[in-house]
């Protein structure tokens, strides 16, 4: 589905990604874990062409993504719910969802909206409320729902659990699982909450300082001594 080879990304002189290789197969949930500042968000944004990588290749279902303008990626089946949720604060919930569907066929907007409201009944209650006035958990639900409005094949999720109460976190992870299993959406999930992420994911990667240091089955990484020490114990 998605394949990254030797990706190098810079912010000016800062070398943020130092030759990243990463694969996501169709139907998988892949977790990308790593400490704050490791380059996880940069990796997801690089896939979206903002910033552009200086070296390396990115392919989505065999198609080269490098040089494709960011706004065209959604038409290739890629959706990104980025770090910080980035809800349009002065648009209503419904308008935010409409923005998620800008590139889709208007004919199935109603069905997709229905599906979003089934997944997140809370959003239905809030549909005419401005995005900026939602709680953190509601904003995260809206960010995921908005990304799903484009009927993506591959969904990038950047720290969906950040700052949320444990109950809401569990709910969000349940829904990620459902999106993957019922709708067949492939998911690349960035998390600091390594425990939940690795439990959910089929496979995982560990990013340290712009380099992948470990990868493997979610369950194996979860039991790995080093990972336990670095990301799990006391980490969440």
């Amino acid at each position, binding site marked *: 589905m998605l394949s990254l080879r030797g990706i190098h990304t810079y912010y000016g002189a800062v070398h943020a990604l130092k030759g990243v290789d990463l694969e996501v197969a169709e139907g998988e949930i892949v977790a990308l874990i790593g400490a704050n500042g490791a380059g996880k968000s940069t990796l997801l944004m690089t896939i979206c062409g*903002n910033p552009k990588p200086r070296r390396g290749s990115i392919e989505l279902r065999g198609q080269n993504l490098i040089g494709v303008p960011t706004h*065209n*990626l959604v038409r290739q089946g890629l959706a990104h719910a980025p770090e910080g949720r980035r809800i349009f604060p002065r648009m209503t919930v419904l308008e935010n969802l409409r923005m998620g569907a800008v590139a889709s066929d208007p004919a199935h907007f109603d069905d997709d909206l229905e599906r979003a409201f089934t997944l997140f009944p809370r959003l239905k209650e809030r549909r005419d409320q401005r995005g900026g006035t939602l709680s953190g958990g509601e904003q995260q639900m809206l960010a995921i729902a908005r990304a799903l409005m484009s009927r993506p094949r591959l969904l990038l999720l950047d720290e969906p659990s950040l700052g949320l109460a444990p109950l809401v976190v569990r709910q969000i992870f349940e829904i990620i699982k459902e999106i993957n299993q019922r709708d067949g959406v492939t998911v690349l999930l960035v998390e600091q909450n390594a425990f939940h992420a690795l439990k959910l994911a089929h496979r995982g990667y560990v990013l340290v300082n712009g380099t992948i240091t470990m990868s493997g089955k979610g369950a194996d990484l979860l039991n790995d001594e080093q990972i336990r020490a670095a990301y799990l114990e006391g980490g969440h």
Partner: protein
Amino acid sequence: MEYFLQQTINGVTLGAVYALIAIGYTMVYGIIGMINFAHGEIYMIGAFIAVISFSVLGLAGVTWVPLALVIVLIVSMTITGLYGWTVERVAYRPLRGSVRLAPLISAIGMSIFLQNYVQIAQGAKIKPLQPMIRGGVRLMEGEGFSVNVSYLQLIIIAMTIALMAGFTWLIAATSLGRAQRATEQDRVMASLLGVNTDRTISLTFVLGAMLAAVAGVLVTLYYGVVDFYIGFLAGLKAFTAAVLGGIGSLPGAMLGGLLIGLIESYWSAYFSSEYKDVAAFSILVIVLIFRPTGLLGRPEVEKV
């Protein structure tokens, strides 16, 4: 009382024109956070195209005024819109992402360039236009003073109201309007969702230029003269209107335009027409002291 009413009618007419221009300032500021100082010149170009096309139509024998007016509006909006698009493409887009000051300087340069360009192409002399829409309605008859509203004033006010209603609907309820607001609120997120933000910004310039073109056509009819320098003062006042109403706010630009028109009209009627330009700016300063974000502007902290 009659006198006051008459000044109100004149002020609203003037305010309508300022508001049409002010929308261009406020929209561009909203979407890319810069003041398009060349916008006054865009309006001036709209006015010039009006004069030229009215003369061409006159030569071609199109004398039925409603038809001439419609044709001139379409021609001026189209060509002026193209100018607006070009200005963004040439002067602002290449500087996107650079330091904040760069596009500002580029805007001032663009403004000077357009003035000189029109001066060279059209000459520095004032261009007159024969009055085309005469007559009016007498609303009230007082002792030695009557209140009149000319047909032209009615046309200006009606057309402005219609355009504003249409524009408000466009921003609130169409996909272009949503794309504009999304780009304004978070450009990167908008592009992740599939909005071509460069195109959306271009269209914002085109729409602002088209409204300024309408203002240019109407002012040409109202005053009957244009010259290459009219964009400066009109632009400054419309900019003042946008700031007064709260820059970035569409209803703010409309309200600000109306207020500036009224202030100017009352000031020249009751004090002195010499200082009418100062009056509007003084009011602006006073308002900004008490409401730094303008009358309908939102606090800057809310901006994400």
